[in-house]
């Protein structure tokens, strides 16, 4: 079975990080399991953890109303192993930008966003790679949001 460090090493967010850095990050991580239908976080709620999917699938849902949590939702993207959700927790944003819902039984690794951010602040060598990976992840996610929302526009 893969160790936490191995899961981190093959994830979108932590790829390219040297072993020493991965050890430091793994020390902040904890393994969690969720049932189908479980909500990891809701759009507009206060950020806490960033999640790395080890097994299973997670849908990212976006509210079609300007007010999060009100009205219909649409799925922007479905994530699987190696992908992350809850980046807002470490990206300096106060609230989550989408809702994360398990569409299969999911095993994942949760890392407290604030503690990870402090680690990156203290180790800018690691921080640079992580933030670069994160910028790539969220710019691709932004593109998916643009495509999805355009369908509902007018």
């Amino acid at each position, binding site marked *: 079975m893969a160790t936490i460090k191995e899961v981190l090493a093959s994830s979108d967010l932590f790829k390219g990080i040297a072993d020493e850095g991965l050890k430091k990050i793994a020390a902040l991580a904890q393994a969690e399991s969720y049932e189908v239908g479980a909500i990891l976080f809701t759009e507009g709620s206060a950020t806490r953890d960033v999640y790395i999917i080890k097994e299973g699938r997670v849908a990212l849902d976006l509210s079609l*109303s300007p007010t999060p949590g009100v009205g219909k939702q649409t799925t922007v993207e479905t994530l699987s192993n190696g992908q992350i959700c809850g980046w807002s927790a470490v990206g*300096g944003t106060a609230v989550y930008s989408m809702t994360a819902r398990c569409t299969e039984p999911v095993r994942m690794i949760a890392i407290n966003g604030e503690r990870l951010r402090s680690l*990156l602040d203290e180790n800018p060598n690691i921080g640079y790679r992580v933030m*670069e990976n994160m910028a790539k992840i969220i710019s691709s996610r932004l593109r998916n949001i643009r495509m999805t*929302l355009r369908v509902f526009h007018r």
Partner: protein
Amino acid sequence: MASTKEILARSELFKRLTNEELEKVAGLGRQEIYPEEFTIFSESAMTGDLYIVDAGKVAVEMKLSVYPGLVQQATVEVVLEGDAFGWSAVLGSPIYSFSAKSVEPVRLVAIDGERLHSLLDENPDMGYRVMSALVEVVSSSMRSVKRTLLA
């Protein structure tokens, strides 16, 4: 007219850099002026430069399939003074994921994405601050695209 370094110093992406770091980035940049309705780059074009808006507005446009057989060019966001666009150029993506067109006459700073990336690789401390700022810029776009498209 403001120097390239002054424009960078007030941009969202580079405002956390020291004077010395700003000088290094400014050394890779050049100022460009475009008329109204000018396509700065097209969706799917090879990436080259990252842009900072000094004056004017730039529309971010995407080709979207309205239904099979009908593709429309739609504005998904408007980039204002101090903001950046064309991040794909610094994130190692081979092509731009959208088009950028001036809404009114614009003054920009263009920075070669690859050379900026090499500069950040050599200076990871500075790279961390720039990439963190980029994450904030992209997440702020995420909020504004929702306001624009769901309004």
